[in-house]
Each structure stands twice: as C-alpha cells, then as structure tokens.
C-alpha cells in the first residue's frame, strides 16, 4: 500500500479549488480505476444494485467523516500512534454505520453481511487520510472524502448495474426484460451473478475509461 500512497502524493492534481476535489474522483482520480484503492471490500456486494448503492453511501459517509475528524485533530495527533488513531476513528464510524443499517434497513444489512465491517480495511480510507486529511483543513478534507467515496460508489453502482441487468434481468429488483424476450429464447446470463464477472466488468470499465483519457494509460 505504501507504494500506492506515494503515487497518490505525487499526483499534482490537488488544486485548492474545492469543486475540483469533488469532481476529480469521478474520472481522473477515480479511487478504483486510477488510484487502485479499496477494491477489496466492496466488489462482492455488486450482484444487485440495492446493496451496492447502500454500500456506496456507507463508504462515502465513512470516508467523508473520517477525513473531517482526522483533519480537525491533525495537529494534536501524536505521530507515533497516528495509524492507530486513524484506525480507531474509522472503526468507530464503521460500527455506527453498521448499527444504523441493522436498525433501519435490516434486509440490506443482511445482504452486506461482513462487507460493512470490511470498510475498515478499505485502502481508500487510510489512503485518503494519510494523503489528504493529515495535511489539509477540515472542510476541503471533508469534500475530498465525500468526492472519493462517491467516485468509488460510482464504479460499484456501474458494475452492479451490468451484473444485475444482464445476470437476472432486473434493475433494483424490477424486471426490465419483457416476458416475450424470454419466450423467444432469451436467457439471463447466470455467469454475471458469479464473482469473476465483477473483476472482468471492472477491467472493461478501465479499458473504456483509458481509451477516452489517454493520459491515464500505462506504458
């Protein structure tokens, strides 16, 4: 991960404009497809749109608020226990999100199962805290966390869109393939529901994105 952190720090994109902080994660600085952060904990919830959206929102809330808290505390945190403090803040926020999900959207929280807890080890959090929140004022940090969370959520939702529509012919649980299509021989692609297709879908998203923005291509 340290390798990636350095990469993030080197990016010259951080202008003081808050708007840019919000916009960049959607394309040039997308946490998943460009920064390669935080793929771990979330792809498994992309079988359907609904859990993916809830997951995206949870990650966004946790990144935004952990950025805000760490940034407000940044001058008081002893550097030797910096990582522990960050982990504690993140873990506390994740526990709160998990408890709220269990109380208010029980069905979805059952589907997300262990993956809510895994937000803690999502590299995107530690990555943004180290690279941005530790050195910037609270408000821009909050926006940075918010933008990165949304940029991350965007990819999740796109992947979930393809997997749910092609895999079970539904979007957000509502049928989109009319019955006559099935009658003339159309079949849902069961492979899309299985884990490997999440990886391949992301690979294709990266392909499309990098064809459009050649400066992101690797040599």
């Amino acid at each position, binding site marked *: *991960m*340290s*390798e*990636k952190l350095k990469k993030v720090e080197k990016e010259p994109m951080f202008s003081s404009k808050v708007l840019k902080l919000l916009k960049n994660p959607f394309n040039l600085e997308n946490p998943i*497809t460009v920064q*390669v*952060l*935080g*793929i*771990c*904990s*979330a*792809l*498994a919830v992309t079988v359907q749109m609904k859990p993916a959206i809830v997951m995206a929102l949870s990650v966004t809330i946790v990144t935004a608020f952990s950025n805000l808290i760490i940034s407000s505390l940044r001058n008081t945190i002893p550097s030797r226990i910096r*990582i*522990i403090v960050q*982990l*504690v803040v993140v*873990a*506390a926020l*994740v*526990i709160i999100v*998990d*408890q709220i999900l269990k109380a208010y959207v029980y069905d979805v929280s059952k589907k997300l*199962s*262990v993956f809510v*807890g*895994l937000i*803690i*080890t*999502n*590299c995107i959090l*530690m990555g943004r805290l180290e690279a941005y929140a530790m050195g910037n004022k609270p408000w821009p940090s909050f926006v940075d966390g918010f933008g990165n969370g949304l940029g991350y959520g965007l990819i999740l939702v796109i992947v979930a869109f393809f997997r749910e529509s092609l895999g079970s012919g539904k979007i957000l649980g509502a049928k989109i393939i009319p019955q006559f299509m099935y009658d003339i021989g159309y079949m849902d692609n069961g*492979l899309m529901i*299985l*884990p*490997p*297709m*999440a*990886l*391949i879908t*992301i*690979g*294709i998203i*990266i*392909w*499309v*994105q*990098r*064809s459009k923005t*050649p400066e992101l*291509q*690797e*040599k």
Partner: protein
Amino acid sequence: MENLFNLFVRSIFIDNMIFAYFLGMCSFLAVSKTVKTSVGLGIAVTFVLLVTAPVNWLIDTYLLKAGALVWLSPDFADLDLSYLSFMIFIAVIAAIVQLVEMVVEKFSPSLYNALGIFLPLIAVNCAILGVALFVQEREYHTIAEVTVYAGGSGIGWLLAIASLAAIREKISYSNIPKPLRGLGISFIITGLMAIAFMSFMGIKI
C-alpha cells in the same frame, strides 16, 4: 477429521479469499508483479492469519458474543458486546502484526529479512479482517475449525497471488491494447482465473 480436511480444501480452492470474495485485492494488485515477492507476502499473510483468526475467535466467543460473559457471572447472560467486534478485531490484528514482527526480528533474522517488509502492510489487508469476520458470521464451533479455515484461506491467497504474478511476468512480453495495459488486463486475468477456480465448486471429499 473428515470435516476439517473438507473445510481446508474448500477454503483453499472454492472459498478462495481473492477469487470468491476479492479480499486482499489491494496488496494483490500492487505486489504481484514478481513471483518471489508475492510468495513472501503470501507466506506472511498465512502466518498472520494462523495467529489472528484463533485469537479473534476466542475473544469473540468468550468476551463479545451475546451471553459470552456467562463464565464470569450468570448476571451477564443478556450482555451483548458484539457491536464492539470490528474495533476489537482490527486492534488485535494490528497488535499481533506488531508482535509477530518483533518476535520474528528477534528470533529469526533470516525469516525477518524475507517477510519483514511485508508485515506492516498486512495489518490493513482485507483478507485478515475478512477471515475474522467470516469466522464470526459462519459460527464455527471449535478452535480447530477456525485454525484450519484460517490456514486454508492463507494458502489459497498465496496460491492466487503467486499464480497471478507468474502470469503478469509473462504478459509483459505480450502486445496488449494500450488502454488495457497494467491494471485493466490484471483485472481481466484475475477474473479469468477465478472462472477457472470455479471448476472446483461442489467438490466434496
């Protein structure tokens, strides 16, 4: 016994941390460029898993679960501390990683040289926390089950990361479309490998 062996094989091949749950992908994509470093990281992950998973299981069973504190006093039968489990698990993992690092450094400098640089990375490896949470969620009953599951998951992770590194070493000679180079093709290869691993599904020994 048969059950344990079954669990072991399943956790390596079918329930593979990377191919089935995408856990530990970050270090997987960042490190798996040469076979040698990947094997080192894989061994370190397996090692840490073998220590942290049983410890976390013990904490969960005897301290956190609903009614787990009954052994202290019957009054605690209704006490449920499981909401703290994320926090405790991650703290235990971070502490144990630190401890392992110090112990290895003291007693086996050669092993430390091989694994040392990877150990700090592991505290935030999703696979480690993932195993702890899966153990909690799936309600494994004995410490033997937990240890076997942790070992199997670690070996499965090692296998995945090493084989991907081998493919990536070879693929650097191929002519891949420019936008797909690097990250894109790694994802697709991982996906294809995951499909291959799916042929193990349904195995029961």
